[in-house]
Structures are given as structure tokens and as C-alpha cells.
């Protein structure tokens, strides 16, 4: 009889355990499968919009449009001999390096997967994420975060405002900037327009020297220089030429960009692009090989004004 009792007890326990486990596991699996599908849809959407924007740009581009037709380009006389050394001296006080500390992973609630339409956030995802955090030691990694120079920026407005690329500070928890004199300043993020890749910071302490703004965009072929922190090598200056005007699909919202051909790599992002008079004409956004897409300075200032409207 004891054997019957034992088996009855074991069968009942296993039956109850299975009755609880199977629905819970099904709930978790159904959620994650739905999330995988939602991400696949999002990736397809990204691919489709990139291709559509590429086709539109491909159909519209011409030599005249690439040269900036109808933009009211800078017609002032420029000396054929460029003294980049003098330009560097003039512009460096307005340039800053941007250092960030990445956002803590914590419980994973800031993961951007949850921003994708259709991705479920429920008890199943919460518990699976917590298990992942425990398994991968996110708490320890969060404690070991350090400041990393991710890009550059430049002073605008009242000398306490810093314009930089949105993606430089995207996903960061803290921001600080290094002025050209080598002094670190704490900064707070006023706002970010990631789709236009523009962010506005405000630094503490005494204001610096805001950058001079070019009254018009440089014509195609004119010499320009970028200042930034390529590979973390702060305040590096590299020269090139205006390559073309047009849009480039695939990275950010498709908008008219100033394309330059100059040696620019990761870390230059957010850095200013100057003409040979030392006036800012753009801000480095992204690129491929020698060809870099920069946000025209007028749009940088317009977005900055939207992010922090000046009190009347």
C-alpha cells in the first residue's frame, strides 16, 4: 500500500508541477516568439524605408544638385593658399571633446527593443531579462563603467551651449566635456533629436567662446576642415573638400546633408566642420571611408533652438 501511496503522491506532485509549468512556459515562449516577429517586421521596415529613400535620392540627384544649386552658396573671395594652422588657432577655443558614461543596464528596462512597435513587455520578459542580468553580471558591469570620449562638439549661443551629434550621447547616463584648454566641465543634456542627429548640452561654469557661424554654405570643391577626436585622439584637425550636397539614406532620417571628403573616423562625430575663414559650416554625423555626411550648420542651430528655446 505504501508503494501506491508513494506513486500517488509523486504523480499528484508532478501533475501539479506540470500544470503550473506548461502554461507559464507557453506564455514565455509565445511572448518571445511574438517579440522576435515584431523585431523582424521592424527590420524589414528599416530596410524598405532605406531602399525607398535611396531610390528617391538616386532619381533626384544631378551634377547641379550635388553642387548645391539654389542654396545661395558662399560667394565671398577666398585665398587659394589655405593656412590651416591659423584656422586651427582661431577655432580650437570653440571646440570641445565629449565624454560619456554609458547608461546602466540595470534590469534591462532601458533596452531599446521595448521601443519597437509590437514588442511585448510583460512578466515573462521581465523575468527572462532579470535572469539574463544575473547570468551576465550586469550589476557588476554597471559598477565598472568609465568615462569614454565618444565624440566632439562645439560651443554655440551664449558660450555655455554645446552642439554635438545625437548619437554621441544617445544611451548615455552622464556627459562631460573637455574644453580646448584641457579643463573638464560637467554638462547636462538639454535635449536630443536623434532623427536629425543633433544634441544640445549645457556646460557648467564660465562660458567659452562660441563658434563663428558661416553666413552661407561653401561651394562644391571648397576646402573645409573637421576637428574632433578620431579614435579618442582629441582636438585632431583634418582637411578636405566639400564633396557634394544631397541626402544619404540609411542612418538617420533622410535630410539634405553637406558631404565632405576628408579623413574622419569614429570619434569625429559631433565635431564642427569649418571653412577656411574658421566659420562653422557643418557638424560631422556619419560616413563611409573618406566621404562624410555632415549636418549643415543652419539645421544644427535650428534644432538647438527647438531643444532650448531662448527666453524672450
Amino acid at each position, binding site marked *: 500500500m505504501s508503494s501506491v501511496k508513494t506513486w500517488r503522491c509523486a504523480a499528484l506532485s508532478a501533475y501539479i508541477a506540470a500544470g503550473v509549468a506548461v502554461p507559464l512556459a507557453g506564455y514565455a515562449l509565445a511572448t518571445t516568439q511574438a517579440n522576435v516577429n515584431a523585431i523582424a517586421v521592424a527590420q524589414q521596415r528599416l530596410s524598405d524605408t532605406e531602399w525607398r529613400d535611396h531610390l528617391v535620392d538616386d532619381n533626384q540627384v544631378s551634377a547641379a544638385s550635388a553642387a548645391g544649386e539654389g542654396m545661395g552658396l558662399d560667394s565671398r573671395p577666398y585665398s587659394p593658399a589655405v593656412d590651416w594652422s591659423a584656422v586651427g588657432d582661431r577655432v580650437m577655443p570653440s571646440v570641445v571633446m565629449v565624454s560619456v558614461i554609458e547608461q546602466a543596464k540595470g534590469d534591462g528596462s532601458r533596452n*531599446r527593443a521595448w521601443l519597437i512597435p509590437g514588442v511585448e513587455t510583460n512578466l515573462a520578459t521581465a523575468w527572462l531579462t532579470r535572469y539574463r542580468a544575473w547570468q551576465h553580471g550586469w550589476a557588476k558591469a554597471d559598477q565598472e563603467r568609465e568615462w569614454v570620449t565618444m565624440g566632439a562638439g562645439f560651443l554655440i549661443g551664449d558660450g555655455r551651449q554645446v552642439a554635438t551629434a545625437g548619437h554621441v550621447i544617445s544611451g548615455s547616463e552622464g556627459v562631460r566635456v573637455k574644453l580646448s584648454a584641457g579643463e573638464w566641465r560637467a554638462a547636462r543634456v538639454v535635449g536630443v533629436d536623434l532623427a536629425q542627429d543633433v544634441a544640445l548640452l549645457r556646460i557648467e561654469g564660465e562660458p567659452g567662446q562660441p563658434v563663428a557661424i558661416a553666413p552661407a554654405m561653401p561651394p562644391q570643391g571648397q576646402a573645409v576642415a573637421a576637428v574632433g577626436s578620431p579614435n579618442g585622439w582629441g582636438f585632431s584637425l583634418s582637411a578636405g573638400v566639400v564633396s557634394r550636397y544631397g541626402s544619404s539614406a540609411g542612418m538617420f532620417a533622410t535630410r539634405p546633408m553637406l558631404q565632405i571628403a576628408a579623413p574622419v573616423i569614429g570619434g569625429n562625430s559631433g565635431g564642427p566642420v569649418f571653412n577656411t575663414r574658421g566659420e562653422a559650416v557643418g557638424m560631422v554625423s556619419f560616413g563611409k571611408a573618406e566621404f562624410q555626411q555632415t549636418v549643415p550648420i543652419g539645421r544644427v542651430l535650428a534644432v538647438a533652438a527647438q531643444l532650448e528655446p531662448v527666453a524672450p
Partner: protein
Amino acid sequence: MADINVTGGTCRELTKYRMTFAAALAALALAGWMIQTAYEQHIKILQIGDKSGELLQMRGLTAHQEGAQHEQR
């Protein structure tokens, strides 16, 4: 006669409980496989989803949902 009946009943009960136990074990194994699969998929969601979510933000294709929390819908 009575002994035979008791023994037969016990045997049937034992068989029933053993079959129930085996079926429950199979269901538990299935649940374990489902949890493991869900976890593996969730790891990919955290990695690929984070990148895709960032790209959607960068392309301006997602509504602002900052601070989305884990909660029952």
C-alpha cells in the same frame, strides 16, 4: 478472492499513477524546453532588438516611448 481483487486493484492504481507521473514528467520536460527556447530567443531580442530599436529612433520611425517599463498589459 478478496486478496486477488485487492491485488488487481492495486496493480491498476499503480499503473494509473505511474502513467500519470510519466506524462507529467514529459510535460515538465516540454516546459523546460519551452523555457530554454524562450530564454534563447529573449537573449537575441535584447541584443538585436536594442540595435533595431536604436535604428528606428535614428530614422525617426518610432514614437517616443522613453521609460517603457515592464508591466502587464
